[in-house]
Each structure stands twice: as C-alpha cells, then as structure tokens.
C-alpha cells in the first residue's frame, strides 16, 4: 500500500512541470515568457522577435585583457574563405592606412610554436571563430562574472595598486 502511494506521488511530481507549462502557455502572450527549453510538441509557441545588430562603430570595453574584441559594425555577406578574407581587406597591416581600421593584433602573427610569421597565422584566419558582432538581445541566463578590478576591489584606482 505504502509503495503504491509513493509511486502515485512520484508520478504526480514527474507530471508537475508539464502541468505548469500548460498553464503558462494558456496565458498566451500576456503571460510570463516561455523558457527556451522543452515544451509540449503540440504547442504553438510564437517565435521570439529577432534582435537588431549593434553597428554603431563604437568600440566595446573588454571584460578581460585577453578577450577577443567585439565587432562593432555589420559583417553581412563578409566572405572568409580560401579566395578572400573580407575582414583583412581593412584590418590587414597593409590596408590599415587607407581604411583607418585597427590592425589585427600581433598575437595573430605567431604560429602555435610561438614562431613569429610575416603575416597572419593560418590558425587565426577565421576571424569570426573568436570575434563576433553583438545584438541588443538581453541575456537569457544571468551572469555573475566580475572583472579583475572588481574581484580585487581596486576598481577606479590608478594602476590597480
């Protein structure tokens, strides 16, 4: 008898999330937003609106020194393949005077053995593996990251002493 009650209770618990989701969905657009996680396959969920790319040409602060800088401009249809690397038509050392774009960092001129090369290393060729543009989307998940200064409590102090 006891076992049966236990099984029934477990089954109810297992069904509870689905029940809650159903209630939320019934509320429609006015209700709280559905999480992007699994929901009943029969449910029509309105697609989230797309977000606008941030293309204001303003450099973003890096959260830590090694962070690949973000791309503050549109990169639609930028071709990066064997034929051409569109990014490098501006950011290549030879083109920065004409384009006034920042040159790719010197860290990109080293192969994996630390040997300095004359041009960008092959392993650094695909810019968008690390460098990405941003949109105005709000983060779905919270983030407790604090940068170096915040951790040491030295924010705002000159030289970080």
């Amino acid at each position, binding site marked *: 008898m006891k076992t049966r009650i236990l099984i029934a209770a477990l089954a109810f618990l297992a069904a509870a999330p689905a029940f809650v989701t159903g209630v939320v969905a019934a509320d429609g657009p006015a209700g709280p937003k559905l999480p992007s996680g699994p929901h009943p396959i029969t449910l029509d969920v309105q697609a989230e609106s797309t977000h606008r790319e941030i293309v204001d*040409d303003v450099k973003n602060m890096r959260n830590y020194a090694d962070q690949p800088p973000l791309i503050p*401009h549109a990169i639609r*249809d930028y071709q990066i393949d*064997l034929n*051409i690397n*569109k990014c490098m*038509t*501006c950011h290549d050392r030879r*083109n920065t005077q004409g384009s*006034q774009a920042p040159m790719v960092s010197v860290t990109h001129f080293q192969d994996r053995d630390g040997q300095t090369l004359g041009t960008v290393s092959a392993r650094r060729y695909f810019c968008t593996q690390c460098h990405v543009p941003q949109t105005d989307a709000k983060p779905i998940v919270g983030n407790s990251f604090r940068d170096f200064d915040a951790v040491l409590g030295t924010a705002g102090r000159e030289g970080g002493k």
Partner: protein
Amino acid sequence: MAIKTFLLQCWRVFARPSVHFSLGFLTLGGFIAGVVFWGGFNTALEATNKEAFCISCHEMRDNPYEELKQTIHFTNRSGVRASCPDCHVPHEWTDKIARKMQASKEVWGKIFGTIDTREKFLDKRRELAEHEWSRLKANNSLECRNCHSAESMDITKQNPRAANMHETYLFTGQNTCIDCHKGIAHRLPDMHGIDPGWSMKTSAK
C-alpha cells in the same frame, strides 16, 4: 565570275520598278512591316533582359543567382530588389545593344558548355569577374549609379566609417564604386593580387 553575275542579277531585280504591286501597297506595307519588325525586335530584346531569361540556363541559376539570393541586393528591409540586368546590362539603348552584341559570346559559351559544371564555373570565375570589374570601372560604375547616386547620398545618415570613406575616395572622384565594392552580390573569386580600393597602392595612382 559566277558570283558577279549572280550579284548583278540580284541588283537588277532590286532596281526594277514593281510590276504587280502599287506604290501605296509597297510604302504602306513597308511601313507596317517596319513597325512589326521594330516592335518584335524590341520585345525580343526586352525578353532577353529579364531575370527569368538569365536563370533559364542552369549555369546562371545554380551559381550567381543562388549567391545573389543571400545578399542585400536580393532581400533587404525596404524590399527593393536588383535583378540580373539591373547591374549587368546598361539601361541606355545604344550601350545596351553594344552589351548585347558582346553577350553573343555567352551564347557560344552556353552551346559549348564553357561553364556547364560548378567546377568549370569556379575555375573561370576570376576571369568572368575581371570582365565585369573592368566594364564597371570603364563606365564609372554606371549600373550602380542607376540607383545609388553620389548626389543623393546623405553621408550624415551613414555610419562615420562609411561616410569617411565616401568623402575620401568617392566624392573626390579618385575611385568609383566597383573599386571598393567588389563581390557585393556574388561570391568573390581568388582575390590574390587584387588590392582593395582604399589600399595605398591603388590610391597612389
């Protein structure tokens, strides 16, 4: 000798006054035939100047057209679309006829399958692209300017980067559109040895 007598005979028939047809029939008939011919010619010309005609060949449908579909000249916020002839055929009549005569080479290419596979197309892409670059360079990017005129370009609406480039290179007449905007509607070929329009090498000329 035989050719000479043949030609002479032709000329005699041509020069002899009409025996059976009245002058009115001949002039009016000639006029109407002329109208029909001219109308037909222009209709046929217009028919070959449509996107549907361009992509009726698999070479164009599977290669450049597929690539165009992803670009801003095909789908964008305002819904204006540039189709093949908007960029690749001059809009003025004489220039258009000249381009069409040039394009007879493309009929040859179609018949003999110059680019009838993806591989052949990719191998020839640099050459084909160079033809278009030099054509647009020679006519000062006329087909771009049919829609994008420098006069109506409000650079305060552009982001500073674009505004600066246009001020430095376009408005001074130093460069034309195609010098910087290559590969905006199709994928680029192997670009080794081709400097961008703003590189110091091309600007110094």
